[in-house]
């Protein structure tokens, strides 16, 4: 029943103890705050950096060049953009050195809308991220996956972008992380820092177990017959709701979990069965990652589908406005997904 933030914290703790994770750093990532979403609270290797995103990525790259493992945090993905060329370097280092320098680093950053974060706390980064060859890119939609993907990311010998849907940070999973106490309050008392003075506080970590979600493996969250909806992150919750609301076993939902490498076999098998597909995400719609997937469906499954593959994504706007009317009309909402799914279902070949 851990929240996503608690799951990340527990994953980082497990990695400190078992995966030779030596450094967790970012703006306000160390004591006393432990991250603006508390995802790095109480961790023994977490430390505060200068307010310098390029320095953070440079530091992480340099640590990876020594072969040691680190997790660097960019406080909000809205502020990662001035590091793009450094991310490119981390992504091309093993390739350009012809295998001389593998780069085992993780960059973790909260993404997306849904918290009324206005223009600079609502950006998405998934489409950008998939344009960084050499990186792996993952995004969990629940606490258990957050834990399992994080351990896989830290253990991976390649750079991994770990995108966290910030709107889900407080969301509690139904599934327990292996080793997590069943009582939510007990977990809170053990690992959440007290409000206010906390200089003497130390977490009491549960005895956590290893649990990996392999990078590149999707998960079917709803089984359905008539249409496949492929998504990730917080949109998964909406897609699941739409599947439940439409009912009748019509809608299949695939949580991609890894954007790159992605689970083409899962998408392909599902679409060949349902013959209709929708890709949903909230990054801006022009040159969107969903477009790549839709393109691939068109190329490889054209004669096996009954409706054009569709992409439902964020509108191609320079930002997300603060007022709820503005935000909700900028990124996909449940009703948008439902409407689009119904349109696809209504298509007659």
């Amino acid at each position, binding site marked *: 029943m851990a929240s996503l933030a608690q799951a990340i914290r527990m994953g980082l703790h497990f990695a400190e103890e078992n995966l030779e994770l*030596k*450094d967790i750093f970012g703006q306000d990532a160390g004591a006393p705050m432990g991250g603006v979403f508390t995802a790095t609270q109480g961790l023994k290797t977490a430390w505060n*950096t*200068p307010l*310098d995103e*390029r*320095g953070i*990525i*440079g*530091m*992480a*790259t*340099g*640590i*990876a*060049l*020594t072969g*040691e493992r*680190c997790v660097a945090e960019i406080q909000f993905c809205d502020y990662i953009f001035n590091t793009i*060329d*450094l991310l490119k*370097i981390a992504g091309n*280092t*093993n*390739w*350009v*050195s*012809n*295998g*001389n*320098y*593998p*780069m*085992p680093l993780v960059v973790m950053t909260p993404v997306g809308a849904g918290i009324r974060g206005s223009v600079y706390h609502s950006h998405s980064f998934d489409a950008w991220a998939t344009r960084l*060859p*050499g990186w*792996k890119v993952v995004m969990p939609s629940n606490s258990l996956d957050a834990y399992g993907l994080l351990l896989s990311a830290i253990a991976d*010998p*390649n750079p991994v972008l770990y995108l966290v849907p910030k709107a889900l940070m407080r969301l509690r999973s139904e599934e327990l992380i292996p080793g997590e106490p069943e009582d939510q309050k007990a977990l809170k008392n053990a690992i959440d820092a007290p409000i206010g003075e906390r200089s003497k506080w130390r977490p009491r970590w549960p005895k956590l177990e290893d649990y990996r979600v392999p990078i*590149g493996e999707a998960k079917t969250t709803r089984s359905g017959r008539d249409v496949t909806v492929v998504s990730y992150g917080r949109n998964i919750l909406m897609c699941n709701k739409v599947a439940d609301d439409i009912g009748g076993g019509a809608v299949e939902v695939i949580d991609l979990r890894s954007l*790159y*490498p*992605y*689970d*083409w*076999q899962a998408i392909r098998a599902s679409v060949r069965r349902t013959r209709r597909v929708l890709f949903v995400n909230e990054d801006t719609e022009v040159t969107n990652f969903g477009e*790549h997937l839709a393109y*691939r469906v068109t190329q490889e499954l054209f004669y096996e589908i009954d409706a054009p593959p569709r992409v439902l994504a964020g509108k191609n706007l320079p930002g997300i406005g603060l007022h709820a009317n503005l935000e909700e009309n900028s990124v996909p909402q449940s009703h948008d997904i439902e409407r689009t799914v119904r349109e696809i279902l209504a298509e007659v070949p």
Partner: protein
Amino acid sequence: MAVLTNVTTKINRKAKTKPLALPKAQLLKLHDYMVKSRVLEDRLIKIYKTGEAYFWIGAPGEEAFGVALGLLVNKGHGPQHDYLHLHYRGTPTLVAMGMPMIDSIRLIMNRVTDPCTGGRNFSNHYCFPKWNVVPVSSPIEVQYGTALGTAHVQRRHKSSGITIVTGGDAGTAEGDFASCLIWASRPGKELPILITVQNNKWGISTGYDSQHGETYIADRGKAFNMRTRVIDGNDPIETYLALGSEMAYIRKTGKPVLLEANVSRLYGHSSATGANLIPDRDCVLAFEKLLLENDVLRPAEAKKIWTDYTEEARQAQETARLDAVPQADSVWDNVYAGSENADWRKF
């Protein structure tokens, strides 16, 4: 093409003033590697000019600085040794560290035998993990950011190994240079970095004086309570002694130093600007003259050094010419570690 040969004319033995501040063996070693580096760069330029390479960039004019640095490096693999985050003028340092000429030639000729990049990157974009020489990347100044990470790990290991970062003067305008100063000097968490700037007074075609309000670039370190120094990087003796004492300070204290070395840019920026000799102070010729005048070196010995290295470079090119080139289908190799598949068509 202006080709350098040894110039042993106009030796004025009376010029001998005070004793040279390094033992004879050390002086000869500096000279030897400086000549070797110059001859190698000269060969790289020839390779470019005869159409056997797409691009040349390198370090003629920076031999005094680069060789002195290379001789002082604690060479090896892992945090107990020095890390080098070089830019594209690293030949003299690597020659002094023991790089065979042919490695550099295979790199510029993009052979599959190029040990640094396997034919993927430009000349002088070195990478030697066995010596902690991390890959040189073309974007200016990014190495000042990545240097922080290797220095951080060395600090954690309480190693006497240090991190060395090099770059040009124009590049110091980039934010990554400021990042390096800021992160290296955090109170109580200082990093063991030798931050160097090779000031050749140019950024391609833009003159130093038109862009720099600061008296010395090194002065910027003072704002961070960092030890700073400006040296004549054309003088290998001064450079060797200065680098030696600054590196010893960093090894001992774990604290950073910002060192600015004035150097020459003898063949312009790169092949993009012609790679032709633009006369300026020439540290190799000047040092050779000094050694001849002081009877440290005899003219015949000097001549032999130039001749032998010229022949070595020529032969290395001939060998590299016959080496295999990268195969087209190798583009996907090493995108991911261990060449795990990264091609979406095969997911």
